[in-house]
């Protein structure tokens, strides 16, 4: 391999011991001077490399962004570490020839891999390189660079509605986040101010719970009809959800008003998730959309619930009201029970209902 020169570089005077430079390069130029070495053990047990494996889904997302967005940017630098094999001459980085590239990719391997596969092979990447005296120092830098804390999830969810073109795995979440925002802040919403968010610590109901309810309906329930169109979702979609919760607050006023998840299971995860499925069942069976539709649909439940006291009689077990918990099993136990009550208030007398 012959000597490679990249530059011009901008040298930062951060440390006298570890020189740091920044420059621009394409993905293939970067791979000609540095390699991605994944953490693994050789047969003798020796640890080599430090990167985690490629995450295909993540790379695909970045690649889609680079290929499909009109003006993609990757402002974060790909960070390279060297210990030897490289020198800085005036404003040029000189990398010595050898059988393998002397540097290591310390940060940005998924971005770099995506960039090698994108149609625009000349896409310029920002590179930040540092020159260590030992491998131990390189490992230390790797840990320091990669141990930053991600943003809190609830803040990301709350920021999401304002952002377009996010990776698709966030899209059901985004739709749910949009609705949560509308339910929590729109004038006249039955849940106004009740949802606990990053910016509304006083809320009673955790936002992720309401999101859970909405996401189930978006993927497999009534909201799926409007999920691909933001204005429909925030129009008739929002109206349906708001009407359902208005009806719920009216029909179950005693279990709702002034209560917290501790004092009433209706405003607790288990009640909300189960009622979300009741909403979908009523929307499906009776085409319920208005508040009156939902009030009528909820009628069979009156007097047959145990949200604040007493016990539930399920087909295969009895449960004290406050033993229902925030678990997937309890969500489904209560949901199946409530849905079958609204569908067949008088039990299994089917020959006539078909």
């Amino acid at each position: 391999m012959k000597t490679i020169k990249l530059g011009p570089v901008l040298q930062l005077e951060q440390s006298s011991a570890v020189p740091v430079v920044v420059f621009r390069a394409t993905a293939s130029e970067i791979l000609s001077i540095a390699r991605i070495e994944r953490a693994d053990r050789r047969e003798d047990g020796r640890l080599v490399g430090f990167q985690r494996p490629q995450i295909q889904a993540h790379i695909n997302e970045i690649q889609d962004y680079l290929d499909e967005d009109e003006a993609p940017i990757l402002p974060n630098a790909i960070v390279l570490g060297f210990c030897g094999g490289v020198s800085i001459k005036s404003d040029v980085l000189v990398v010595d020839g050898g059988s393998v590239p002397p540097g290591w990719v310390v940060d940005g391997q998924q971005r770099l891999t995506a960039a090698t596969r994108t149609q625009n092979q000349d896409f310029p990447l920002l590179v930040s390189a540092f020159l260590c005296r030992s491998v131990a120092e390189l490992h230390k830098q790797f840990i320091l660079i990669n141990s930053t804390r991600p943003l809190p999830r609830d803040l990301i969810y709350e920021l999401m509605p304002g952002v377009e073109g996010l990776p698709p795995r966030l899209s059901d979440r985004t739709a749910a986040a949009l609705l949560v925002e509308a339910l929590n802040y729109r004038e006249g919403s039955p849940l106004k101010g009740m949802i606990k968010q990053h910016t509304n610590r006083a809320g009673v109901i955790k936002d992720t719970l309401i999101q859970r309810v909405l996401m189930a309906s978006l993927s497999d329930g009534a909201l799926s009809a409007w999920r691909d169109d933001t204005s429909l979702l925030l129009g008739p979609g929002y109206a349906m959800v708001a009407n359902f919760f208005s009806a719920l607050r009216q029909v179950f006023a005693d279990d709702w008003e002034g209560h917290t998840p501790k004092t009433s299971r209706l405003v607790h995860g288990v009640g909300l998730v189960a009622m979300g499925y009741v909403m979908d069942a009523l929307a499906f069976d009776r085409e319920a959309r208005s508040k009156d539709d939902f009030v009528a649909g909820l009628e069979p439940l009156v007097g047959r619930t145990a949200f604040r006291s007493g016990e539930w009689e399920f087909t295969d077990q009895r449960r004290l009201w406050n033993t229902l918990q925030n678990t997937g099993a309890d969500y489904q136990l209560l949901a199946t029970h409530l849905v079958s009550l609204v569908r067949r208030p008088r039990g299994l007398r089917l020959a006539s209902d078909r």
Partner: protein
Amino acid sequence: MKFLFADTADTVDPAFDFERTRSPRQRRVHDDDHYPHEHLIRAPYDGILLSRAAFSDHRRSGKYGAARSMRFRREGARTFLRYPEAEFPGSIVMGDCGAFSYRDADAPLYTVDDTLSFYADGGFTHGCSVDHLIFDFFTDNREPSEEARRRQEITLTLAADFYRTSVALGKRFTPMGAIQGWSPASMADAAVDLVKMGYRSLALGGMARSPTDDIELALKAINERLGASKVAIHVLGFGKVEDAPRLKRLGVTSFDTTSPLLRAFKDDRQNYFYADGNRLGHYTAVRIPQAADDRHARASAKARTVGQEELIRLERIALGAVRAYASGEGELEQTVDRIIDYVSVVLWKDKKSEKSNTAEFAKLRSIYLRSLGERPWERCDCRVCHELGVEALIFRSTNHNKRRGFHNLAVFHSLLKSQAKVSP
């Protein structure tokens, strides 16, 4: 004889990009996917069996998650599976309790009542009574274990209750009495009891792992005791699809299996079906696992010294060679060599000696020479082979493998139909 496909969320993505081995970013699981009857030109079965075990509830989690299972109860099987009666006239949608999934429990997980609500919600045409599996099978007249006797009693008691209550589901629903027993004679006894209760349709259970010879013994005993009564018999979970014609001779009216689909990715060798005259023949799909998927790379010690980037290079060469060969460029021998170059790195087994690894790859080489050399995808007219060509014979992503499973279903089903024409 009707063949029912036992579904466990086995779908493919019709928009899957085989070049990039991935689904489009907007794809929605289930909604955008295809069931076999949607994907193929003709439904490759006469009905679908849905087990309750496929659906999540408060007792266990199934292949269909909570939201999707709740949706199933809302929409019913026909809508959920996009398998309307109008488009598939006379087709069966059968339900069962998934006894295998609670085999270790003391008693069945479900009551008669909630099973009937499940069948009612699902809009099933047929449904099995609630049963409890018996694994023992003695061909002599040995005394049964206490447990076997207890389980048969449970099964029969629940069957009586189920038959009575199932009237609620109306005339369009056929209740099926589940037969459980520890021997041909005890199964025949159970069948007689069930017919006395009123059942005209029986389901032979607990034989999913039994050899065909044992199933034959049981069926013969049942036939002898039932005599000329007009009873339909279904065999639950029949894995030896090659032996299906033998069931017909014993008066079986239907059976269910997933086997042709599962074989596509669970059988190392016999994973691509074709009709060899009146019988089922097999080819072996060519393994080109995804190098970028780290599970495969990690599975091999060789992979660790070779490195992921090199693996990806070898993978690309192997895939390119197969595709070029299929389109008429490139020689067979060289194509197979390129596959072996890659496979001998990624499928290297640490636990085996170098010698046995080498022998394995030599064997694979000759197998692949046959698979690719005879170009079976060009002789098949199913949608999978027609659309994908050689891709149908590549053992790779779930979308590759399940499509091959769909092809297997189509081959198996049309073979079964043509055998029906031949034999009276």
